[in-house]
């Protein structure tokens, strides 16, 4: 039978929150980058052509590949900077969720048409 591990009591976190904060903020930034690229590809013929990395899939291939690359890169940099630190988590959460919310809105075609 498995027993609970009591390392790190509720009052004493054992791992700094920096690594988690880096992952959370990077995801918000990555999602927002995807939305910005999608809008840019929709509005600019030059950007659309530049993002056509795999012709059968079209500009979607570039939008998603570049966004995923930016996400992973941002994540790696933030993790490297914050891994051993504790950071203020509330502003990180707010920023990440606002970016995610904006990303959901900016990919919605009627809103894209407003730009």
């Amino acid at each position: 039978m498995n027993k609970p591990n009591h390392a790190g009591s509720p009052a004493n976190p054992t791992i700094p929150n920096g690594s988690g904060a880096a992952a959370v903020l990077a995801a918000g930034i990555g999602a927002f980058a995807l939305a910005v690229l999608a809008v840019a590809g929709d509005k600019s013929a030059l950007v659309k052509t530049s993002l056509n990395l795999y012709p059968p899939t079209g500009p979607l291939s570039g939008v998603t590949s570049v966004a995923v690359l930016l996400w992973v890169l941002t994540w790696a940099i933030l993790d490297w900077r914050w891994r051993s630190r504790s950071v203020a988590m509330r502003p990180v959460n707010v920023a990440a969720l606002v970016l995610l919310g904006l990303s959901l809105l900016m990919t919605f075609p009627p809103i894209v048409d407003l730009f």
Partner: protein
Amino acid sequence: MEITSRGLWTLIHGMGFGALYLLACSGALVELYRSTISSVSQESTRGQQRFLNVYLITMAVLAWAAVLSGAYVIYPWYRAVPPPGTTGLAMYPQRILMSSAATIGWHTLGMEWKEHVAWFAPMSITTAAFVVIRYGRDLRNHPQLRTAVICFTLVSFLAAGIAGIFGALINKQAPVQGGHVIQLASGGGK
């Protein structure tokens, strides 16, 4: 009883990866709530934590498999451009939808939104899985990180839900067809 290779890929993408992912989301949300927030629950055992880790990794794999198969296998068939002079559009779903005012919205709103919003699902669940695995049972001591994990899992569920609903409805309006025919069973007379 037969199915085309493109129909089979659409089935694998939608039902195999997408629908299974959506089903897994509800389980993940309940378990994350139970193991990190609920005040009535007991602390997770090592086995329960290991199960949650494997569960979330499996979800991330399913989400990535769904978007990658969608973007690089199904979507090229969906958006294929018919050669000049083609009269039948059955093999060109996007063109079928765009050929009528009654169906064009399925492409201009449905597919245009689905093809982008779907990617938020793997990004969000990968983030949630990383945080849960990185912190393990110590996550109970990081209330803000717990909130982020639950929110990211919810966003992932929402994004996958939007993509899944539009995918199913678009495929109903203009199914991806073609490829070689796979015989599943021979029809026997009664």
